[in-house]
């Protein structure tokens, strides 16, 4: 009698290795899109410096390290700046975790499409469903 085989796997996501594996341009784009939407009234400039992202948000000068740490250059003086600093680390951690998850999905898709026949590809919510022929 036929029985299907099933395996559940957990891969690393959201750790420094995968975060560093995000394309620098992709990392900048993810950050830019999030910060521009979250703080539309503040002037925004983002640049990469090696593995770091340098962020100018209003008067704040921030650096996002490759391991996800957020550091402040200078001081946060007013209550708005302090509020932004209070909420940004968790928000950016979640943002990058999701970006890493999507990047992992794409890496798996590209790897399998390069080795097997990709019969079907479907996005279901935030999950990617593939069917391949081995």
């Amino acid at each position, binding site marked *: 009698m*036929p*029985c299907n085989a099933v*395996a559940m*796997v957990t891969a690393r996501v959201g750790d420094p290795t995968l975060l560093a594996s995000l394309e620098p341009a992709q990392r900048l784009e993810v950050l830019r899109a999030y910060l521009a939407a979250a703080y539309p009234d503040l002037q925004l400039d983002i640049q990469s410096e090696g593995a770091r992202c340098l962020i100018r948000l209003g008067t704040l000068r921030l650096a996002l390290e490759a391991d996800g740490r957020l550091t402040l250059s200078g001081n946060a003086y007013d209550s708005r700046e302090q509020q932004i600093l209070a909420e940004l680390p968790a928000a950016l951690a979640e943002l990058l975790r999701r970006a890493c998850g999507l990047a*992992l999905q794409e890496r798996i898709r590209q790897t399998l499409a390069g080795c097997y026949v990709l019969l079907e590809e479907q996005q279901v919510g935030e999950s990617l469903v593939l069917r*391949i022929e*081995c």
Partner: protein
Amino acid sequence: MQLRIVILPDGRFGLYSEDGGFAEGAQALAEVLATLGAAGIEPIEVGRVEQHRHEDQSIREEIRHAH
């Protein structure tokens, strides 16, 4: 053999063989995992490969064989 792969956004993914028997399905899953590993996608946890059968599968098989 056809496999279905469901990749969640948190790094977990499931591999399901959709035809054939358990032994060849398990082998196909192992090959896909090896392919992913060779591409640098190293699993940190792999659950035991299990057999899965729908409750009505034996009935459906019997009906199919009866025809």
